């Protein structure tokens, strides 16, 4: 947005940086250059171009991943009741904010840079901030997965503390095992974009959280699970479309190198495998739900999309299209039965986060052993380490929160809804009249 003169200056930067005389776009160089100088200048310039290209690609993929944040917020809001939507959006804003701050200050260093905080001294083949930004949106994803599972009953304060610990410590600590060059990477564990490292970690931390906080009131009464329908399927549907699109940042961006034909062909293959798995997950979950409940079920179908996406995340670069379809379809089937199973176990997960991210995260990681040539034993070791570690970390953290700041709102607040109880405002106000605009509103009983 600078003036023309600034533009011209920055056009020159390239050449100054190369420390050579050069030709300006469409103009003959004033001075004759030696062949060697011209080649050296070209080499330097092309290195610059490739660097710029790699970073831009990474940043754009990161932006696509950032779309997953409203995606999760909408999915959660849609599958919860209308009295909790403000709380859900607050959690999703604050965990994204906290990830941006805590992962910047501490988490990124723990994961990739052994204790140099605030990105200090970090070296990368990318611009350090580009590398960080891409990793940061992953950390935010791992945290926000938990948000939906504990919706409708958790104190906002407890959730904030969890977000900080998750993005600042738990996720980075466990992420280091593989992506930081830690013990799992040394054993040859393969998890391309994080079926285990991001999704199983998020999903099993959610399981720990749910066990610590217990089900919503009225969810399991008289020994059976009762339906508590989400208030808005349109929001949930839009959310899953955004997640599906966001995954085109999540998986392809994880290639982490873009300027060669080999890398970019891999990226393109990852796009298609990711999409095939999502599509197969949708169709499989729809079909299974159709058989089980006699109608093609909406919330199961969109969970199937996500299950397929989580499933393919561990190895979208190393399997064939047909395998991608299989991985996605099996994930779609798993999601449905997993959701039913957790209901039987009286584990109340309103959005299916544990099934989608946790169980399908395990499946996806194992699938690379089955379809993608990774060592199945190591895959099992890795994914179980992540799942168990996240479960324990989640449970312990929330249990400590329970004993200290308190984990759960009162029953009256839960009935009233977290929006009014925790934030003093309702999500939806349908009537407004002059003078006293809110007089026609009625508070919960």
């Amino acid at each position: 947005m600078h003036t023309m003169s600034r533009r011209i200056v920055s056009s020159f930067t390239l050449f100054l940086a190369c420390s050579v005389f050069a030709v300006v776009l469409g103009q003959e160089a004033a001075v004759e250059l030696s062949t060697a100088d011209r080649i050296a200048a070209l080499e330097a310039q092309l290195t610059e171009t490739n660097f710029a290209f790699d970073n831009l690609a990474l940043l754009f993929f990161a932006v696509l991943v950032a779309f997953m944040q409203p995606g999760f917020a909408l999915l959660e809001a849609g599958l919860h009741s209308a009295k909790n939507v403000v709380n859900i959006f607050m959690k999703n804003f604050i965990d994204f904010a906290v990830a941006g701050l805590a992962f910047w200050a501490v988490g990124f260093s723990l994961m990739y840079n052994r204790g140099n905080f605030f990105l200090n001294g970090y070296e990368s083949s990318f611009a350090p901030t580009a590398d960080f930004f891409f990793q940061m949106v992953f950390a935010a994803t791992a945290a926000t997965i938990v948000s939906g599972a504990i919706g409708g009953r958790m104190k906002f304060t407890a959730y904030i503390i969890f977000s900080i610990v998750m993005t600042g410590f738990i996720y980075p600590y466990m992420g280091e095992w593989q992506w930081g060059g830690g013990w799992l990477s040394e054993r040859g564990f393969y998890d391309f974009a994080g079926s285990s490292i991001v999704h199983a970690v998020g999903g099993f931390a959610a399981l720990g959280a749910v066990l610590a906080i217990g089900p919503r009131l009225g969810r399991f009464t008289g020994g059976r699970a009762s339906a508590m329908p989400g208030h808005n399927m349109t929001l949930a549907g839009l959310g899953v479309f955004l997640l599906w699109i966001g995954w085109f940042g999540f998986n392809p961006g994880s290639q982490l190198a873009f300027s060669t034909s080999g890398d970019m062909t891999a990226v393109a293959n990852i796009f298609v495998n990711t999409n095939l798995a999502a599509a197969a997950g949708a169709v499989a979950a729809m079909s299974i739900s159709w058989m089980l409940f006699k109608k093609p079920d909406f919330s199961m179908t969109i969970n199937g999309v996500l299950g397929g996406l989580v499933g393919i995340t561990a190895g979208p670069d190393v399997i064939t299209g047909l395998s991608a379809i299989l991985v996605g379809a099996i994930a779609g089937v798993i999601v449905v039965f997993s959701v039913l199973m957790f209901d039987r176990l009286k584990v109340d997960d309103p959005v299916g986060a544990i099934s989608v991210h946790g169980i399908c995260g395990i499946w996806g990681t194992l699938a690379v052993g089955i379809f993608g040539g990774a060592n199945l034993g190591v895959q099992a070791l890795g994914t179980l380490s992540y799942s168990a570690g996240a479960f324990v970390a989640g449970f312990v953290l929330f249990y400590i929160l329970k004993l200290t700041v308190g984990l759960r709102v009162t029953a009256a607040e839960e009935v009233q809804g977290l929006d009014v109880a925790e934030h003093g405002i309702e999500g939806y106000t349908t009537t407004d009249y002059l003078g006293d605009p809110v007089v026609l509103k009625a508070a919960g009983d």
Partner: protein
Amino acid sequence: MKLITAIIRPTKLPAVKEALFKAGVRGITISKVSGHGGQGGIVEHYRGNKFVVEFHEKVQLSIAVSEEFVQPTIDSIVESAHTGSIGDGKIFVQTLDQVVRIRTKEQNADALTPVAA
């Protein structure tokens, strides 16, 4: 004066409205209600859990009329709201002690004659 309250199927509202206008009835207050009676519930599923919706959407009409309009009003509603299937609804008739028109402070029968805008 009587207050006639009719609970009808929402889909029948246009016909009932038409019939009432033909019978000379103009003043009507309606509200959305949910009804339970002989009609069976509807089974739905959410994330694998079955539930039965036992109430059906209905529309309730409240019509204050002077005596000579009572029978014509009831007749119009019964004719126009009738389908013959369970769930057609009910008409309740109650005595009104007093009616006041807020705009004019007119009372009773006077209060019940509508004026076109």
